[in-house]
């Protein structure tokens, strides 16, 4: 589904990604781990099309299509979703209205009819139950005054609404207490299918107890320095990132 080949990316003159290769197939969960500053968030931003980063070499291919020239919204319309580490507050725009706009713009781009109000309500009800979200929450301004946990849960709610092909969860576990973590992870697990794929970006192994990866990649200094199965995450937790740093 997703194939990242020799990806190099820079911000200004500073090269951050220095040749990344990853293959993700439908139905798989990949975890990308690494110490702070290794390029994890850059990788997720580049896949989602953040224009602050310049792709200097290599390619990101989704279902055979090179994403290079596509704006972030066009990537979203093709099924890429990025859950933000720090979701943005939008006062005056309710969660529901934001979702209506996002869904209908996506449908428009894909030549589909807009979703009717009734349909929308039904889907919202279904997905909010999945994430144990109080309906009152949905009429609040997007992310405004939300706690860290509420923001993250809201990100996964949006993921559930948009049903992406490829979901990238950037540090979704940061700022979550154990209960919120469980709810968020349960939500993600219920959304998992053999038709979509998930990339989990995290500093700690903790989240991977709940969202179990098929593959773990260790990112250090802009390169994937180690790949393996889920046991690699435990090894990292045990030995710490100094182990990786010492080897590289």
């Amino acid at each position, binding site marked *: 589904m997703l194939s990242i080949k020799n990806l190099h990316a820079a911000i200004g003159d500073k090269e951050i990604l220095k040749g990344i290769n990853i293959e993700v197939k439908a139905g798989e969960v990949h975890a990308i781990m690494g110490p702070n500053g290794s390029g994890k968030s850059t990788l997720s*931003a580049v896949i*989602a*099309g*953040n*224009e*602050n980063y310049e792709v200097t070499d290599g390619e990101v291919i989704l279902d055979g299509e090179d994403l290079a020239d596509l*704006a*972030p*919204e066009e*990537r*979203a*319309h093709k099924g*890429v*979703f*990025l859950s*933000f580490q*720090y*979701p*943005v507050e*939008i*006062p*005056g*725009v309710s969660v529901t*209205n*934001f979702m*209506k*706009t*996002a*869904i*209908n*713009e*996506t449908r428009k*781009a894909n030549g589909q009819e*807009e979703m009717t109000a009734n349909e929308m309500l039904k889907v919202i009800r279904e997905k909010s139950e999945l994430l144990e979200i109080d309906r009152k929450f949905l009429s609040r*301004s997007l992310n405004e005054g939300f706690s860290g946990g509420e923001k993250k849960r809201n990100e996964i709610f*949006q993921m559930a609404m*948009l049903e992406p092909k490829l979901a990238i969860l950037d540090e979704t576990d940061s700022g979550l207490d154990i209960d919120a973590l469980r709810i968020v992870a349960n939500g993600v697990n219920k959304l998992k299918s053999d038709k979509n794929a998930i990339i989990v970006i995290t500093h700690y192994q903790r989240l991977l107890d709940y969202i179990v990866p098929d593959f773990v990649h260790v990112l250090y200094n802009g390169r994937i320095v180690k790949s393996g199965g889920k046991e690699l995450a435990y090894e990292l937790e045990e030995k710490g990132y100094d182990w990786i740093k010492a080897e590289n």
Partner: protein
Amino acid sequence: MDLKEKLVSSFMAFEERVDVHSDLHDIRTNALKNFENKGFPTKKEEAWKYTSLNAILKNDFTVFPKQENAIEFNQVKKYFLHEIDTYKLVFIDGVFSSHLSSTTHDGIDVCLMSSALTKPKYKMVIDTYFNQIASKDDSLTSLNTAFAIEGAFINIPKKKVADKPIEIMYFSTGNEAALMVQPRNLVIVGENSHVQIIERHQSLNENPVLTNSVTEIFAQKRAIVDYYKIQNDNNEANLIDNTYVSQQQESHASVHTFSFGGNLTRNNLNFYHFGERLTSTLNGISILNEKQHVDHYTLVNHATPNCESFQDYKGIFSDRSTGVFNGKVLVEKEAQKTNAFQKSNNILLSDKATINAKPQLEIFADDVKCSHGCTVGQLDETAMFYMQSRGIPKKEAKALLMYAFSNAVIESIKIPELKQRITKIIAMKLGVNLGFDL
């Protein structure tokens, strides 16, 4: 003949239409003298540093329209808040249109300035309030006073709540090649009374218009006045709005100014305090493009203790549009325990757009809380990326962000239908349809 000479010489013709043997006429004559001495303001004056009237004054404005012009309601329905019932005071090229208006004398007076100025039963009210708070020094206010003859007269006696909002509409038909109008409004809100007013100036074609308007508002003890100005005129329309608000103790007066259009708009908004524990609110949203210009010149004069004032102005400027915010808060020595807050937040969407923001705090009391904050920025790129990553295209994402930016002021609109209307105008101005009413 330039416009000043034309105005001064037309005063004689004007005198044939009014009672020259009245106190009122003395006021007019003195005002004309002041205007004659001072003339139109120029950029040399500090208060007009960023706004030039020169280009506008070159038009050959008709001062008194030659004929009465009629319009059908359907032509102009969209400018009214037609979703709800309102009192309406409608003027066409400066002349009252009884056909489009809906006035009342039932418990409250919502009627014409021309009748209030001439009918004996209003004499006492006029003597007490007319030109009492308006500046006698400002040349444009004086010019308006000299020719004051028509406009809205609203008198709410004590303990009355106006049962519906009042819309004051000034239409220009464009039947004159260039027209100057000078509406004069007087609003008196008695003790414990409450009124909501919406004022709009709208020209119906592209001929140049210059409106020099003066509004005096008197809020008596514990009165609540909410005044909304919608400025969304076309690119040949110019508006100088001079509004003076006089407040007695525990009154709440708010003026919202929505500047979405017009070639040049100057808002001189002045609040004067005459009692304790009162609140003044001055809110504004300006969203301009092309070469539109808006200048907000505000004054809050805290002269009494324990009063509060809040100013919140949001500006979004694109293309070559320009904005000015000059907000003066004067806290006199007696005005202890004043709370005065002022905010002017601006976004520039183009390299050629400009905002000049100048807060002025003059504080002579020592136990006060005053603050001001002016910001100028661009759209938050992270927020843009966030929305785009959810499939919302750039243009719509921009619109949502600008809406979010103006939200605090939109939320302070107390008439739900007006709030909807303003959000609709904003969406139109931003060229988006978001699939929901913002």
